[in-house]
């Protein structure tokens, strides 16, 4: 039984280890190890396309994580006071946006935004005051990337913050109200500090998702290139040690983020247990 478990862990981590191992390959052929070398890493920084893709991914992930955790928290609090049919309606929207395949979201967003922009651009050109200069041309790119990523991550944030909200000690809020705390003050001093670990872990998971997402970005990135889209097209062109080096860096980056978010969740569970007593 134990051997079986070890085998599975081996199965889970072996492919990752292989990539990391071959990223230190000095040879030019990706699958033929010729000696240890770090040379592929500095080379990455000379590749302007890669740096560009990385910056785009970072920007998109950062903005969508901020939007998702903010709006998600607001929605989770709002939904908590909501009952009846409206509540069911919002709940199903949350579940639909988490469950629907990423590829369908990507496609649907692509055609909806292209159609919408086709309609909005002439309209905008007409009403745009000439003193402001040239009217902006709405196009796929940052806006569609952030929009589509935020949809999924916002729903994820709602689920995370809501589970924390349900585990929260109501007595503290009542006590604050009894002691003449204004609703705003109660929110800032009682609710928000208690929710904070959940909000932060929602932020980190949203960031990780957006940073790693390939399939949605593949459709809605327009003329922009995100890091996963860049890696995908490089893989299509052939397996090289350079890709292994990028992959190793991405893996390290996301694993660090995940550990951070996990430690926060643990802290959350810990304080949960404390408050239940």
């Amino acid at each position, binding site marked *: 039984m134990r051997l079986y478990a070890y085998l599975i862990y081996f199965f889970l*981590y072996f492919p990752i280890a292989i990539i990391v191992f071959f990223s230190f390959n000095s040879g030019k052929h990706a*699958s033929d190890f010729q000696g240890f070398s770090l040379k592929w890493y500095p080379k990455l920084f000379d590749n302007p396309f890669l740096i560009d893709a990385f910056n785009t991914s970072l920007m998109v992930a950062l903005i969508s994580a901020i939007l998702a955790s903010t709006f998600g928290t607001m929605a989770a609090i709002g939904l908590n006071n909501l009952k009846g049919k409206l509540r069911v309606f919002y709940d199903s*929207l949350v579940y639909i*946006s988490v469950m629907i*395949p990423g590829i*369908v979201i990507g496609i649907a967003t692509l*055609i909806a935004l292209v*159609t919408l922009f086709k309609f909005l651009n002439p309209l905008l050109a007409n009403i745009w005051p000439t003193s402001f200069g040239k009217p902006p041309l709405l196009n796929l790119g940052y806006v569609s990337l952030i929009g589509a990523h935020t949809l999924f991550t916002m729903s994820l944030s709602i689920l995370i913050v809501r589970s924390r909200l349900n585990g929260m000690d109501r007595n503290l809020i009542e006590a604050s109200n009894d002691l003449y705390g204004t609703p705003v003050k109660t929110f800032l001093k009682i609710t928000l500090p208690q929710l904070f670990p959940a909000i932060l872990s929602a932020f980190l998971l949203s960031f990780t998702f957006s940073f790693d997402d390939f399939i949605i970005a593949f459709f809605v990135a327009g003329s922009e290139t995100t890091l996963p889209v860049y890696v995908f097209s490089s893989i299509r062109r052939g*397996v090289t040690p350079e890709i292994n080096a990028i992959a190793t860096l991405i893996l390290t980056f996301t694993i660090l983020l995940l550990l951070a978010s996990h430690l926060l969740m643990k802290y959350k569970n810990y304080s949960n247990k404390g408050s239940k007593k």
Partner: protein
Amino acid sequence: MLFPASFWFGVMLILPLIVITIFSFGERAPNGGYIPSFTFDQYLNLPARFVAFKNTLTLAPIGTIIALIIGYPLAYYLVFKVADNKKNLLLILIIIPFWTSILIRTYAWIFILGSKGIPNLLEYVGIENLRLINTSFAVLVGIVYSYLPLMVLPIYVSLEKLDKRLLEASSDLGASNFKNFINIIIPLSIPGIATGCMLVFILLMGEFLIPAFLGGGKVFFVGNALVDLFLQSRNWPYGSAVACSLVIIMLIIVSIYMKFINSKNNREEVSII
């Protein structure tokens, strides 16, 4: 409080789903655009992509079942055979791969199954010209590898919740371990099994990367057909019809499945985070 979320759901979820439905009844313009009309032509043309649907609807359930068969013993091991202080670490080790880039993890298998990987090693022991990559087998390996964590976690949760005193009582009354397993552990973990299977199956229905990398154009899913239709041949109305059909098939299967499961057990929510 709900305003920003409502706005987002409206513009990024409801509007796109409405547009894609409208497109699926439209006609294709000669240059690849869309002509508004109301026709069922796109849907009647669906059999042209029959192979993609067939592959998805056979390999997705097979992959789900293999993941269950491999994942269940692991969840069992973690719950019943591991000391409490080690449990957390072993659990995190399962969650981490799930949240790291699926692109990179799938790419690793191109390496391993490619001609310089396992087939190359097998040549030393005399098995030659074995082809692993670009087969259904490779796609299944990729599927099980990617979705195993998602199967293990819900089962783990439901086994962890199981009242261990039931097992003691049953053993005291003379039941063997095997009997305990069949009569107590399996029935009580059905909610976890159901959640795990559903999550894996739903995600597999929309899979694109695994068949793209490991099926190499020979074994392809509906997801690959969609990428082809939208980004290469630019047939948006037909692509929309394929996407809508995928979602409808998914909804039908999931609701039948849920009805079947709900009639036996109360549903429970399982956190995948």
